[in-house]
């Protein structure tokens, strides 16, 4: 039985100007310990899919029009509120895009991680030791001294590491990283991705990486799903998709990765008119 099994999931937003179909019936499976990358541009429905896993989207306007999300044998869409709360953090944890606003500015990082641990692992007695352990796990040196720092005293990369530590501290089965490196500068991006690779090796945990950047998933994800306008247009092992893309959108996305030494005059962009025509066919 797969850890996560999404079947025919459709998500609609009921806004004042009509119904927006953000996700139009997608299927995805994820085994224990497997790594999946969901790639797509803004508005393709990739973040919405990630948030839907624990029903984080505000309802209304969000409506789960059809389908089911089976996590560990139970349908998330039919769960009661308190079961959902146990699921969130305890089994599925998140890392968000914007590290500077993901941490509450008025609390120290110790405080915030302690809160997560108290919530899901009340049996932990020595909170400080546990927190330091997880901060060191995500590559924060001198973690004990950092415990009582406020978020604004940390750099963006550090903040994101703290967020990852917070997500890991509840020992989830699945970590959803929603564009975890987008708000960071390139060198820090590389460091954080290295950290993820490291964690993937050391911890037995499934990871869903949501990104718009094909460039960072190579050598990280086992599988990749390409999302385009609410649909999964291509789904397969990372190597296969990267070397032999089938869908024109995937081809276009892969072409968009800027390469050092490739003598291009202009960066390649995606021709949406052609894709529109393709969709109408």
């Amino acid at each position, binding site marked *: 039985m797969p850890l996560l099994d999404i079947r025919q999931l459709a998500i609609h937003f009921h806004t004042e100007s009509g119904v927006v179909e953000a996700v139009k019936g997608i299927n995805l499976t994820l085994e224990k310990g497997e790594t999946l990358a969901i790639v797509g541009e803004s508005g393709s429905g990739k973040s919405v899919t990630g948030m839907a896993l*624990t029903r*984080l989207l505000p309802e*209304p306007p969000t409506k789960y029009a059809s389908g089911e999300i089976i996590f560990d044998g139970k349908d998330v869409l039919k769960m009661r509120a308190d079961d*959902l*709360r*146990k*699921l*969130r*953090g*305890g089994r599925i*944890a*998140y890392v*968000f*895009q*914007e590290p500077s*606003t*993901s*941490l*509450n*500015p*008025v*609390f*120290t990082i*110790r*405080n915030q991680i302690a*809160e*997560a641990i108290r*919530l*899901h692992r009340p049996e932990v007695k020595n909170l400080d030791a546990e927190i330091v352990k997880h901060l060191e796990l995500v590559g924060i040196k001198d973690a004990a001294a950092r415990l*009582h720092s*406020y978020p*604004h*005293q940390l750099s963006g990369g550090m903040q994101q590491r703290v*967020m990852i530590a*917070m*997500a890991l501290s*509840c020992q989830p089965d699945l970590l959803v990283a929603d564009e975890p490196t987008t708000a960071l500068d390139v060198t820090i991006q590389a460091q954080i991705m290295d950290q993820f690779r490291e964690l993937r090796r050391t911890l037995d945990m499934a990871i869903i990486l949501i990104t718009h950047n094909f460039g960072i998933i190579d050598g990280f994800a086992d599988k990749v799903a390409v999302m385009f306008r609410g649909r999964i247009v291509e789904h397969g092992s990372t190597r296969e998709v990267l070397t032999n893309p089938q869908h024109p959108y995937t081809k276009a996305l892969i072409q968009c990765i800027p390469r050092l030494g490739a003598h291009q005059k202009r960066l390649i962009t995606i021709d949406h008119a052609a894709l529109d025509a393709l969709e109408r066919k």
Partner: protein
Amino acid sequence: MDALKLFTDVFGAAFFFALGFVFLWWVAMPPLFIPWMRSDREAWERWGSWSTLLLAGVVAMYYGVRYFIQLPSWLSGDLLLVGGLGGVTFLLVRAASSERWERALRRFRGDRLGLAALSVVCLYIFVGALETFRLPMGEFGAEKSLLDLIVQKIPNERSYSAPLASKLLNDTSAEPTPLNSNFHLLGTEQLGKDVFVETLKGCRTALILGGLTSAIYIPLGALMGLLGGYFRKWVDDLVQYLYSVLASVPEILLLVSIMFVQGQNRNLLGMSIALGVTGWVGLCRLVRGETMRQSERTYVTAARSIGQSHWQIMMRHLLPNVMHLVLINFVLGFSSIVLTEAVLSYLGVGCPVGTASWGLMIDSGRSELSRDPVVWWNLTAAAVALFGLVLALNLLGDSLRRAFDPKRS
């Protein structure tokens, strides 16, 4: 029976003074001095909770005893004061046990202006407490406050006399009748009472009214604002509906009608309730707006994503982020509460007759200013006392805000 009453009163007064100090210094503070407790935060928090429960138990016992021997006016000022003291202590204890507050406390100790403001506020509270505790030591068993006992040497005059004057104001005869007292520091008012003493007595009214009203309207306004701003949709509609209705009725009309309903039984508690249920609109609107802004930020989603409940998110994440508005609102609202009391008293539905209040003093000052010679001391004394309190609270509020600001390290 008289002996018993005397016992419970003296016991009560002494006990609560002692308890207040003991509580502040031995319950809230020992973790600051006892190393093992400082390092074990959980123990510290347990200590705070249990000792607060203990205080609540003792208060309940005291009032149980007083109730069963059926003393009149058992719901008197000291209940309010002790309740307030208990509340503040509870907050302090819970507070001192959290890392954030401990840091703020440490920072506050280095803030001289803040400490000065705190001592001024404490001075006001001390005077208010003196006026609050009553002992049956007057003629025919009448109750007298500790403050009355302290100033009982100061006699009344027949009418107005200027500050430090040796004769009555209207005594223009060649050989004026000497006053009953050598001098009155701030003169006497129409009925011949010493203005300085009256001003001191007014502390209690102002503090109880301001404190109690704030204790009612701040939780109400903050909670409503948080609920509306966080849940949106129909909850917000309901909150908006409530405060729009309240805001559309002229406030003074609403106040007067609530006071009228209470009839002759009205007391400071009733007045605080009236001021409280009409006064939360402004705070609610502020908090609601800021909550809406804050709940857009990712940390709220992040808090949900680790499985925190709505209540935890509102109380632990959003409330601290809107607390600065609450603090400012409290400080600014305090003086307007005291002044509203003056308006109500002027309309005849305010403080019970015979209560010393700055509001009444300022109000009577209006007509006194048009006299010839002008009677300015009554108005001035009350205004300066009010000004001092509000200024001290302002500075204290500022210092607290600075001490709690995580951006200042």
